[in-house]
């Protein structure tokens, strides 16, 4: 089987997939496709030819990931993650709507398009409120609004940023994260956490707690959030797999939070990184990804 990996650069994830293929699947040929090098005639059915059986989408640029998955699928190739999954997950407004339509519990979320209506929405939600850009990752431009003064300042900042997407105000209830690790308990600090579940096909391959970055409310591993293995419960498995289906996902990262009423899904990532989850849980994610795509791809 020939597997193509679409990349911007050879990230940790691409490198681990290459290494896992060499170690566990010697019959698999891996070919890298740098999206800087692509040139497509999208009006010609034969505008792109390769003997690749399936593409793994690992482009770190989400715009390019969405487009290259779309174009490759237009030529008839199978791509994981698909354009459908990426188009849903790269836009938080669209993603949250898909979660809601599929009755997945998610924090209350409001959308507004002006500073004035955003302030109204924030008052409806009640402080603190989380503001997020509709597109973006790694916690960029995510802020916790704790007062009217702060909300006004952040909204004015967004208006000055220039990009029209920053003026689509995605406002979400702040979920008070429970939990602290033993070490943090000993230190006497209250450190919030969330959960990242890594779904491959019909299984939650692995899950981890992500603890808040010191002096921050965010817990992204890329920002320095500490990861710790999470014992997968039936509740987590059920909700993570339902969230995966809601975004037409195959290999996704589902972010959840614990509440008094049970788990809620905060977001689904369509092209999840796996460095943190591999290190914290020891699960061989790249091997599991390759097993899945080999098993589910017709030659």
């Amino acid at each position, binding site marked *: 089987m020939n597997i193509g990996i679409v990349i911007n650069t050879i990230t940790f994830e691409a490198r681990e997939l290459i290494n896992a293929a060499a170690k566990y699947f010697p019959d698999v040929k891996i070919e890298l496709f740098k999206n800087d090098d692509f040139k497509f005639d999208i009006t010609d059915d034969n505008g792109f030819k390769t003997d690749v059986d399936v593409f793994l989408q690992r482009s*770190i640029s989400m715009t390019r990931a969405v487009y290259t998955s779309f174009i490759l699928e237009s030529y008839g190739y199978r791509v994981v993650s698909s354009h459908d999954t990426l188009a849903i997950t790269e836009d938080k407004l669209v993603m949250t709507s898909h979660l809601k339509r599929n009755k997945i519990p998610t924090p209350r979320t409001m959308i507004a398009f002006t500073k004035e209506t955003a302030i109204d929405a924030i008052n409806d939600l009640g402080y603190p409120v989380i503001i997020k850009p509709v597109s973006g990752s790694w916690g960029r431009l995510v802020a916790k609004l704790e007062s009217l003064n702060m909300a006004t300042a952040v909204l004015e900042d967004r208006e000055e940023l220039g990009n029209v997407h920053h003026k689509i105000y995605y406002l979400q209830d702040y979920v008070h994260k429970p939990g602290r690790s033993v070490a943090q308990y000993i230190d006497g600090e209250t450190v919030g956490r969330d959960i990242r579940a890594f779904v491959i096909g019909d299984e939650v391959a692995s899950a981890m707690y992500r603890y808040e970055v010191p002096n921050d409310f965010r817990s992204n591993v890329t920002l320095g959030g500490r990861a710790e293995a999470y014992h997968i419960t039936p509740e987590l498995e059920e909700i993570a797999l339902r969230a995966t289906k809601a975004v037409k996902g195959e290999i996704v990262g589902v972010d959840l939070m614990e509440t008094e009423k049970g788990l809620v899904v905060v977001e689904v990532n369509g092209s999840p990184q796996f460095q943190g989850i591999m290190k914290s849980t020891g699960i061989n994610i790249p091997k599991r990804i390759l097993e899945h795509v080999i098993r589910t791809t017709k030659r």
Partner: protein
Amino acid sequence: MVNRKVECPSCFFEWTSSDDIMEGEVITCPDCGVDLEVVAISEKELKLEKMDSSDEDWGE
């Protein structure tokens, strides 16, 4: 086995790379932790550039 000299363009720390490094690969400086992209590989050296990961659409 090819051991290539590597110097971080950010903190100038020097180390020796693994022999299977590939052009376009992102590596992390073991001293200052900055992400670096391998932009060229010669027989004895790797050319690295600090990776600009500030693009708004980069993510997962």
